[in-house]
Every structure is written in structure tokens, then in C-alpha cells.
């Protein structure tokens, strides 16, 4: 009997939760704010679904309802991707070690 592909995806999902559990516990508490902003950015990988949605369907009517929702989702996700990664980078740049000069 063949295994439903859903089961494979479910396996990936369960294992990723476990990976997430261990990886996030190892994040130093002082970086919890950047952790939130970067998870925000990466969860916007949902943009791949939006791109597929907006580019499907017929040539003549680009702004059919389903495509329009795709375009809007691209717009929202793009704000998040750029905003999320850049603000994380900006924060991380601020974390400096004590200067050795004393």
C-alpha cells in the first residue's frame, strides 16, 4: 500500500516543531526581540503561495478575484519580509561587546 504524501508532510511538520523547540530554547534571552522580528520575516515565506496565486489563471484577465487576493498578499508579505529582516539586522548591529581598552 502506498503512503499518502500528506503523511510525509506531516512528518516534516512534526520534526520541524521539535527542531524549533530545541533551537529556540538555545536562543539567548537578550535576543528574544530580534527572534520575534526574524520569525516574523521568515513566516512571510507565505509569499510563495501568493506569487503562485497571482500568476495563475488566464492572460486576459490579470485582475480576476483570486489573482487580486494574490497580489494583495504579495504586498503584505513583502512589507514583512523587508521590514522584518532589515529591522532585525538593525537591532543586531547594536549589540556590541565591551571594549577591551580599559
Amino acid at each position, binding site marked *: 500500500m502506498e503512503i499518502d504524501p500528506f503523511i510525509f508532510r506531516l512528518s516534516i511538520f512534526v520534526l520541524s516543531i521539535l527542531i524549533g523547540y530545541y533551537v529556540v530554547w538555545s536562543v539567548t534571552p537578550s535576543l528574544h526581540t530580534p527572534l520575534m522580528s526574524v*520569525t516574523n520575516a521568515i513566516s512571510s515565506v507565505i509569499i510563495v503561495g501568493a506569487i503562485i496565486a497571482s500568476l495563475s489563471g488566464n492572460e486576459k484577465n490579470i485582475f480576476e478575484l483570486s489573482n487580486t487576493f494574490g497580489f494583495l498578499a504579495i504586498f503584505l508579505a513583502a512589507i514583512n519580509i*523587508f521590514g522584518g529582516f532589515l529591522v532585525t539586522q538593525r537591532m543586531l548591529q547594536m549589540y556590541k561587546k565591551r571594549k577591551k581598552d580599559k
Partner: protein
Amino acid sequence: MSANLSAIFYLISGVLFILALRGLSSPETSRRGNLFGILGMIIAITVTFLSIGNFSTGIIYVLIFLLVGGLIGTFIAYKIPMTAMPELVAGFHSLVGLAAVFVAISAFLNPEAFNLGFPGNIKIGSLIEMSIGAAVGAITFSGSIIAFLKLRGIMSGSPITFKGQHYINLLLGLSIIVLIFYLCKTQSDSFFWGTIAISFLLGLLLIIPIGGADMPVVISMLNSYSGWAAAGIGFTLENTALIITGALVGSSGAILSYIMCKGMNRSFFNVILGGWGISENSSSKNTEQRPVKNGNAEDAAFLMKNASSVIIVPGYGMAVAQAQHALREMVDILKKNGIKVSYAIHPVAGRMPGHMNVLLAEANVPYDEVFELEEINNDFANCDVAFVIGANDVTNPIAKTDPQSPIYGMPVLDVEKCKSVLFVKRSLSPGYAGVDNELFYRDNTLMLFADAKKMTDDIIKNLN
């Protein structure tokens, strides 16, 4: 590009996202981690374009929306002040939630695009996945909007409660399940729209009873929700990158919520059910005027100048007064005089996890001078001066002694063990928990009644 090849690339970007989070285990590796995350995102987006292959005129619009969104995001990222980080993150969560809803809607309207069947005849599994994704996304969206408004101060931070609230929420939650069930049975789109509408309402109702200072838990929880929403959509689209990311973000948010709840010694459900801080009027009865020692900037400067070690305890009040830069200036002077200075951060200081650390980092405080509660709590006993600025409940020794107190059992900083305590505060008013702070009346406590920034500036003047 073949489906198998693109699946492998999606897996790679999923792995890069794991490395991005892994990098945050220390500040040195964190910047490289962030670059891994960016790389993962670029791979995922590029692969998506290549796998479609059909570069119709639509692609121009895709790029335009991508660019406009990107520019807005970039603008926000560089303009946002660090004190506003909690609002920003709440706002970003709402966007992820709404994007998930939109993607689910387009998948529902045009299932052929995702190989999910045909309108009116969508595979049951996909239908369940996309409605869960849409429902969780909608809850994330409206919940985050409320969190944003509360953090921004547009909406009052006090909890909004009414009778039967939790039953209504339960009812709404159950009706979402019932609607999804009938959606699968009939494929009728009115059930789909109904699910989304009720989820929007549920998100609103879930967050309004939660008080302002519980926002660290709320933000973490919504972070988790946004992850589960992404995972739901990931299952619908059969996309590994999205499933991995959703799981990572979901567990990350859940762990942060747990840490925040532990920092307040409250159960998760206790926070979620809300209404804390209004019913606790029992402690306000015994607030007869007790004597406190009142000091000024000169006294504070004298005490600190003659100390050999000082521990700073910053809290949200410091951020409100924007005193972090002045504080660092003060510490610089102390350090020049050979005094050992460190910072003690309580897990729930600030309005989101790690918020205080970012604010100190922005003020150029080196991160190896900043310590977490467990790391530093034993040092108070050997310390000369504790300088409490903008914190209150997290230093209250009553949490260790009085089982009747609403904050009993909450981990607190053992500030009272210091030889002397300087407490910068505007008045004697109790903190968020509505509990009088024992510390104010101790013999070794000197109260400095002033705005945090003004007081710090005055101390600097006296130190020089």
C-alpha cells in the same frame, strides 16, 4: 524547473531558516544567522518564479507589488524607534495573518492553480487545511490589530471584560469547527466566508480582555499563531519551506509565551482569560501613609560614588521616560571612577520579550554587562547599591513572603539584599499588579521621586 527540483530548493530554504534562528544563540553569530534567513527567502522566491515559468504580463504586477511592499517595509525598518518595537512586531503579525487569509482565499477561488481540484470540488484534505490556515490567519490578524492599538496607546490598555465573554469565545470557536465541517460536506462558499468572518471576530474578542502589561504574553502568542497559520497554508500548497517555517515560528512563539508566563508566575490560561489587575483591590485597603526615606540626586550621586559595585535594574518606566542614554552616560562616569556596574533584567521587563536588552543595546550598553535574573540574582547580596529605574513589581520582596499577594511566587530580583537601594519613581503609586511595594519602606531604601530621565541627568551633574 521540475517539481522535484523546486521541492529540494524549498527544503534548502527551510534549512536556512533553521540556521537563522540557530544563529541567535549568541550575538556574535546572530548577524550571520540573519543573512542565512535572507538567503533562504531569496531562494524560496526565486524558485517560485522559476517553477511557474510562465512569464505573462502578470509578472510585472507581481514585481510592482513586491517592490512597493518592500519599499514600505524598508522605510518602516529604518524609521521605527526601538521603543516602538512591540507595536511594530504586533503590526507585522497582523500582516502575516492577513496574507495567510488572502492566500487561502485565492486557493479556494482558484484551486486549479495549486492542483487542489476544481471550484466546488476541492479535495477534502486541502479544504480542511486551507480553512484552518484562513481561520488561524484571521484570528492572528484581528488579534494583532487589537494588540497594536493597545500598545500604541490608541486603545486603553485596561482589560475590557463583560459577562459570559469566555462562553461566547468558546461558542465562536466551536462554530468555526462546525462551519469547516459543513464546508467539507457541501463545498459551499458561504461556509468558507463564514469561517473567516467568525475567526476575525474571535481574534478581536480573544485579545480585548487582556491587560496592557500582559502584552509580552499576547505578542508571543500571536507570534505562535502566525506560525501555525503559515503551516496550515504550507500544507495546502504542499510546500516544504512553508511547513518548516510555520512549525519553527509556531514553536518559537509558544516557548516565548511560556517564558513570559513563568516570569510572571501565571498560567497561560490565567493570562488568556484576562481581566487581571482590576479585581485585585484587596491590597489597596492597607495603604496608610508609611514613612519612606526621601532622597535627592545629590544623595544618590554620593552613595554611588562611594560604592564599589552598582547594579542597575531598568524597567519599562525607563523606556517611557527615554532615560536609557542618560543612564548609560551615568554608568560611564561611575565606571571611570572604578566602580563595577552591571545591569539586571527581569524576564518581563518591557513590553515584549527581550525589549529591555534592545533598548540598552541601542544606548551602547555592551551586552556582556547585561544579565538575566538567574545569572545575577545572587550578586545583589554582595553589591553596594542597586539603582532601580522604572521597574517596580519585579523587585517586590512580597512575592517571596506573602502567599496572599497576587504576585506571590513570581520570580523577583533580590534588590533588597543590597546595602542600599535607590528607587527612581514618580510617586509611591503601586505598580501594574496593584500591589504596594514593600521595598519602599525599608531602611536601606532611598526613594528618588522624579522623572527617570530628569533624575538621571541630575545625578550626572552631581557626579561631575
